């Protein structure tokens, strides 16, 4: 049928149902971003150049997926996020998860560790071991991975500002295990720009933070070719309130900034881009928009990597994505419904063709998850993976007029936003002027107002409320003496180690940090030696602060 004929037919159909349309479109329907939604999509809403715009999975521009045969080749990886309290407890939990076939466990670190503070730092008081594992030195890392082979395990860790220190621990621990470094797999999040703009776990000013990131990626390109040194976390923008277009545009702008800095160091793009991946929020609401989001990401990434950065390795052109549901979409009211929400989030990720999925547990709204809830969450993924048939056919929503139309629409909006940021001086400038923070805050405000005015429904919160028993739910409670134990442990370590060697290693970090950045002054090497001498996270970060100073966010909000 010709396009003109279809246009006439569609107009006639609409005319024939005029009164229904008048009613159904009296109030505009939009998705979360304010993107207006039509009641129906037809071939008129999609492009006509299938090969150029969409193509086949496994081929450029990868809109339909990274692999020709999708999940038939390999199912997505079930990736829980876990870790709490002491390194010993974390080791026990990891062994238990590994026994259940759940790999890799993504390790949560407590806030003092993520901010480069030892357990006995005054600013750490009250926070040690609270929101993740407390890691003060190589000794703790050796405890966490006691009996776990670093050559065979993918060890993911959510750490950003002091990511180089954790990476150094991983290297030394693997060396001590006798592992072949070329086979060591794992990930540090290492996405520092979004810490300034969304999540707040920053230490050093922006420029030295980028230097540390480039140092770590350059080191991995040379010595740890299987390790993923950067996980660009758009999901943290979304959790902070950013709408979908901002989530994508800010994540890409951060990623492109890193790529440009790493290439400027002289590392070829094909030596590292294949080991970068994204963590994006996967929402249960706006289900089809989420699917479109993942399709758009692959397209935008592939085009930019090929055309702007000259990447040639197909692995560099494939945008690898971890779909992660977020805590902000779950509710304390009727918390069992969180299982339904995360099931749908998992479905969105699966339909979007992501490589890894991480779901929040139903009880995460009350604190660190219980083991029971963790197992339900893993089981939820098993149900989607093995009972729905979704993995059988690649990109099953490809060709849907609606999803293809959304894919086009988001692509153009995201590209326009990326261009806007570039035109205004790039992402580092946008961080420093606070413009990204303001955009996220505005999005969050709009969403909150929509929720409070009942324009957006949250079941159990602003609609379908039921009276519930108020029994307390505390999934996991940190032992009250844990902080004291951790303080004693780090103080004992400082007495027992060769402190002259540790002090010399810290001096070497300061010396190299003062030199201009470059391959010859890559800080990974002195940091690895400091870690080997059992210098602590706090001491190493202090040495870096002595040279770099600290980031001050006042005046930027």
């Amino acid at each position, binding site marked *: 049928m010709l396009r003109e004929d279809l246009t006439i037919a569609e107009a006639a159909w609409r005319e024939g149902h005029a009164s229904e349309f008048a009613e159904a479109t009296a109030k505009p329907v939009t998705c979360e971003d304010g993107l207006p939604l039509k009641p129906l999509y037809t071939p008129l809403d999609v492009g006509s150049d299938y090969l150029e715009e969409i193509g086949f999975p496994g081929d450029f521009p990868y809109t339909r997926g990274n692999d020709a045969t999708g999940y038939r080749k390999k199912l997505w990886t079930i990736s829980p996020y876990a870790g709490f309290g002491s390194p010993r407890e974390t080791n026990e939990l990891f062994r238990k998860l590994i026994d259940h076939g759940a790999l890799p466990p993504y390790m949560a670190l407590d806030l003092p560790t993520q901010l480069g503070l030892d357990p006995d730092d005054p600013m750490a008081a009250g926070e040690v071991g609270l929101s993740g594992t407390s890691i003060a030195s190589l000794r703790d890392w050796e405890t966490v991975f006691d009996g776990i082979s670093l050559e065979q395990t993918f060890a993911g860790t959510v750490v950003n500002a002091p990511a180089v220190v954790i990476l150094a621990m991983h290297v030394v621990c693997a060396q001590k295990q006798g592992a072949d470094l070329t086979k060591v797999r794992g990930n540090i999040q290492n996405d520092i720009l979004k810490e300034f703009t969304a999540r707040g776990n920053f230490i050093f000013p922006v420029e030295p933070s980028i230097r540390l990131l480039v140092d770590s990626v350059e080191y991995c390109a040379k010595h740890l070719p299987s390790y993923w040194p950067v996980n660009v976390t758009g999901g943290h923008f979304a959790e902070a309130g950013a709408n979908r277009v901002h989530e994508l545009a800010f994540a890409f702008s951060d990623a492109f900034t890193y790529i440009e800095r790493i290439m400027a160091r002289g590392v070829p793009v094909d030596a590292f881009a294949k080991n970068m991946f994204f963590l994006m929020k996967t929402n249960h609401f706006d289900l089809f928009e989420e699917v479109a989001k993942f399709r758009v990401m692959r397209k935008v990434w592939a085009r930019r990597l090929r055309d702007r950065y000259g990447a040639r390795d197909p692995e560099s052109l494939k945008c690898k994505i971890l779909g992660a549901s977020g805590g902000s979409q779950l509710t304390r009211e009727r918390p069992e419904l969180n299982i339904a929400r995360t099931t749908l989030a998992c479905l969105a990720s699966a339909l979007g063709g992501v490589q890894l999925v991480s779901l929040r547990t139903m009880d995460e709204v009350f604190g660190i998850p219980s083991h029971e809830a963790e197992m339900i969450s893993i089981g939820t993924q098993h149900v989607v993976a093995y009972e729905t048939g979704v993995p059988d056919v690649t990109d099953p929503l490809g060709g849907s007029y609606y999803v293809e139309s959304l894919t086009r629409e988001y692509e153009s909006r995201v590209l326009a936003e990326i261009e806007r940021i570039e035109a205004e001086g790039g992402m580092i400038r946008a961080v420093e002027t606070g413009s990204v923070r303001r955009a996220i*805050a505005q999005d969050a405000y709009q969403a909150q107002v929509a929720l409070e005015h009942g324009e957006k429904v949250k079941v159990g919160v602003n609609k379908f409320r039921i009276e519930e028993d108020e029994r307390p739910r505390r999934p996991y409670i940190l032992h009250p003496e844990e902080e004291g134990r951790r303080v004693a442990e780090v103080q004992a370590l400082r007495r027992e180690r060769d402190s002259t060697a540790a002090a010399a290693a810290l001096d070497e970090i300061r010396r190299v940090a003062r030199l201009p950045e470059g391959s010859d002054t890559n800080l990974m090497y002195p940091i690895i030696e400091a870690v080997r001498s059992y210098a602590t996270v706090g001491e190493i970060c202090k040495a870096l602060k002595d040279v770099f100073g600290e980031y001050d966010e006042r005046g930027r909000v």
Partner: protein
Amino acid sequence: MEKRIPRILMGKPGLCGHDRGIMLVVMALRDAGMEVIYSGRHNSPEQLVKVAIQEDVDVLGVSVLSGAHLSMCGRVATLLREQGAEDIVLLAGGFIPPEDIPKLKALNVREVFTEGAKLDDIVAFVRRVSEERHQRVHGMAAS
């Protein structure tokens, strides 16, 4: 008598970096015409109390999502009392289990707003307690 514009200090004590909630409250209070100072993230309780006293605020609002709310609020409340500034109304928000709310109130936190709280309710509450506090402390001088 002139009505004073409420003066509010909002800040995050401790290490928690999540500030979606506190930013929403800051924006809502500013939209409602109040004078709001946002001190940002990674404040020590000492810093927050010092600024609150220097700026003569009516309300100090703190937000904690890391689970450290009891120790953080306890330290802020103790410092306010030690420095004779108990009149500053202490409010808390964040990721706080329901059974901890009475414990926070026992620590002299006047009210606790968790993720279900509505901005309009927070604004109305802050306005009321600001006026009460101002009357109590500056009422005689202003009339």
